[in-house]
């Protein structure tokens, strides 16, 4: 039944093979855990370690955040639905606003719905593998807040973030995963 509706979804909306492929990808992560037959909706959850070992995510500095954002309880463990969710948002066809929304969530490390300075610092350190000095990091963070903070509250809200990201020339091309 479940698979059936998945296919329903795919036939109209997405390419079938992609979705089929996604299911098999999911299953390949743990063939012993995930049954082939999803008709009775088994409650299977794959741990974060397995998700993060996918080649698409393995080298991504934000893989943990991605998994956490899309997982049911924010712990990085994923059901098939979450998994599909993740790749539908990160797919090429997903609209910009949706991507921006989830990008915001990914970069919001402490889940307080604002990207504050500590989030920015974490982002920079992840992006540069701690190769910048603390002064440089804080300079960069200050500059980011100065640039993107429209309402001057010293942190970036979702609106600030969107306002900034929709003008970025290569956000769409970089914020997607091909599978």
């Amino acid at each position: 039944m479940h698979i059936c509706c998945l296919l329903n979804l795919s036939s109209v909306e997405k390419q079938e093979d992609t979705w089929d492929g996604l299911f098999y990808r999911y299953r390949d992560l743990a063939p012993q855990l995930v049954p082939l037959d999803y008709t009775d909706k088994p409650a299977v959850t794959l741990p974060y370690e397995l998700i993060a070992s996918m080649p698409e995510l393995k080298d991504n500095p934000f893989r943990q955040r991605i998994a956490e954002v899309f997982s049911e309880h924010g712990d990085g463990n994923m059901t098939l639905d979450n998994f599909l969710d993740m790749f539908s948002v990160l797919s090429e066809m997903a609209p910009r606003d949706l991507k921006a929304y989830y990008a915001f969530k990914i970069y919001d490390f402490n889940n307080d719905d604002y990207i504050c300075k500590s989030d920015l610092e974490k982002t920079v350190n992840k992006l540069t593998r701690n190769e910048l000095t603390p002064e440089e990091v804080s300079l960069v963070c200050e500059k980011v807040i100065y640039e993107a903070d429209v309402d001057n509250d010293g942190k970036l809200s979702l609106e600030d973030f969107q306002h900034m990201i929709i003008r970025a020339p290569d956000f769409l091309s970089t914020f997607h995963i091909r599978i």
Partner: protein
Amino acid sequence: MPKHEKSTEGNDGSGDNEEGSAAENEENVKGTDKGRKRATPRTARSHGRGRARHGDEENEDDEDGTRRAGHHRHRNRRRGRAAGNEGSDSDTEAAKARKNQANQKSKEDDEEEEDGKGGKSGKGKNEKKVDKKPDKKGKKEKANKKKKDKKKSGSGSDSDSEEEPITEEELAKLKEEVEEKKKLIATLRNKPWKMKKKLSVLKEAQLFVEKFEGALGKGKGKKFYAYKVMMTKKWMKFQRDFENFKTACIPWEMKIKEIESHFGSSVASYFIFLRWMYGINMILFGLTFGLVMVPEALMGKPYGSLPRKTVPRAEEATAMNFATLWDFSGFAQYSVLFYGYYNNQRTIGWLKFRMPLSYFLVGVGTIGYSFMIVIRTMARNANDDGGGDDTSFNFSWKMFTSWDYLIGNPETADNKFASITTSFKEAIVEEQESRKEENIHLTRFLRVLANFLALCTLAGSGYLIFFVVRRSQKFALEGLENYGWWERNEVNMVMSLLGMFCPTLFDVISSLENYHPRIALRWQLGRIFALFLGNLYTFIIALMDEINLKLEEEKIVKYNMTIWEASLYNGTIPENSTAPPIQVDPADVPRGPCWETMVGQEFVRLTVSDTMTTYITILIGDFLRAVFVRFFNYCWCWDLEYGFPSYSEFDISGNVLGLIFNQGMIWMGSFYAPCLPAINVFRLHTSMYLQCWAVMCCNVPQERVFKASRSNNFYMAMLLFILFLSTLPAVYTIVSIPPSFDCGPFSGKTRMFEVISETLEHDFPSWFGKVFGYASNPGLILPFILLMVLSIYYLNATSKSYKEANLELKKKLQSQAEENKRRNKQKAQKSNEQEENPFETEPPKPKGGKQDESTPNQDNKKGQDGNESKKTGQPQEASSSQVLQHPSLAPSNHYPPQSQAGNLPPPSIAVTRPPGPRRYGMPGYPPGNPCFPGPQPGMPRGPHNYR
């Protein structure tokens, strides 16, 4: 607001109005209800605020809803009338009822959403987990209920449709319903819901569509849509592959990218320049190879048939020695590689290929093409520069969009990390430079001093070169044999010593100036360039001397030739003019010095030795040094890696200048040595690989990695200058020195360019020659040149004015952005002040009332100047909210809920609408909850009507 709407709609009929207001009332009640419900777990303060806020949102919803409803009704009515007014009243009644139901339902949905979200973000994590399950259960239940509802209503409608034939109006409604569902399906992707919810909604919608599309006879739509989606996907994939293919076709793109990621864009700019040069040289090579060398080798007379194509007897013994060949004499000298080998036959081979003409035209074309391509590239780069980047979000974009989520391989990831770090460093350097505030007078003084010192150095070295060249000319006149090694090699030694020490000196001087590294690099380049011009000058002087010497020699040889010929024929020439000439081996025929080949050889030798020097410098200076530093560091008394020798940095200025001057040599010499472009292509090709390797393995990035200007226009300008300088001697020799009498394609002519007039005479009709003659007289050429100058002036003036306009606009934009920021800051301050004493403005009741009044105005305004507000974005919004609202209301009404950050979870905005920035006042965008098409009350909403 609703009133306003009504009044505009007044002529529509009173029944409608009543209906509408009733619905609204109900909804208002609901809204407040909901507000209360939501607010219960919160503090009293947030209670009021949340409610107010909700009321507000609800109002917005309603407004839009009614507007649409009105619109819709209108349409329906029209259709109804067209159909003959049958039973339209009852129908609208029914529609109203349905609409209300629908609204209710959608509200419920909303609520559910809100609650879920509120629970998620507002409460702690533990609570969340506990809360979630019942929530979900609720959802499921609801969904089930919905389905049941639908089933009921579906069956009802089915029976309805069985009872009476579908009226046209119903059909229209149905159609709209289906369209709506379709739209939902299409936009479902855009909603930030969990997959489960999406699935259930989608299934519902699809079932509906499937069921009723058949009734409407439009079953094909779905297939077509699927097909379309598939095609777009295929097309996108194709485009992507094509992009990839294009990138793969750019040679060395990956190498350069890798270098850029580790060493910054300034080093990469050198390699990009090198690649560009490689392209140019490929084309020059194609020209000379395809139009000169290959035809001569295939169709010209073979080796040994003519004196000019044979190695002279005296050199035959050593002609095949490697040392001779390495020096480009011997067999190499008497081959297609050099000018002297070519015959002066007007046409060669069965193709009647005009060899001399082709030779001349290729020589001219090489120079012309180079000028054209350099200037065109410069112009294009200038265009790029003029537009400029939008740097308003420089750092933010770097932070949030620089990681490429596609990266799935550790090496690429490493590169990407390095490149992001480098780009951050570059941006930081820019930022620090722009911030730098120092003693301007001191800096100015130091800069003047530095320039003075540099000028002194240049003048000194210039004089030194001049002096040495004069002296060497004197020595040459007296005969070099009387002098020692130093006197003979004085010029070369002085030149290389200058080339070694002056750049270092300039480096020291430039550290005085305290420029931004990019500008410092330009100064450095300019100064070394000026120094190298001296190099060029000595070279050309020496060459000219040599040419003059050869010309003298030629005269003597010519004289000797006649004597030799006379001795050959033993004075029997006049009688034997008809008899076959005496066979002499071409190798024994005396010949002239052929200065053209000499010049070509000189250039080829120079290029080769230059290449060798570069490679050896790389190997010793970079590679051995790196090896030494790396391995002797274990057993040395100080730290070699961070101490004295350290690893070398990549010398951008030296390499760029080397490339430019080398190219100058090519341009100067390719007329006399057609093989020169080929050699250069080879050199550039190998040096690309060698230098890429050397950079990656033996160099360290500069201390301050700086961003190169995006266009290489400074390099280009130097290249253009060199091109100009190097064409001067080439053109001079072509135009004003007579070609050698016994070698090369122009032998026998007094000047090389006579080949043109010869072609005109022989290969074109006579009138063409006449026209050409008229066209080339000064009376026509001078006005033409004048015209060109005028047009250049005009174009230049226009482009300048455009540029100014551009700058002006940019300034305006910037000032506007600053203005926005200032305003926002003011607003933020105001709200902060208000935050400090929140209880003064607390009373909830008047607040709600006021808001009801203020929001409609605002909304109307927004609707009126939708486009304007879209353009200017926040300022409009900001001003309108400032003007229209009591300041105390600002925080609760305006979108940034920053003052309530602690207690009101902002995701209630974020989640209820898919990230579409409401504040741009998008016209036609439903400001309400788009998660389910509930808030479109005009639609006869229910699947439950039709099942």
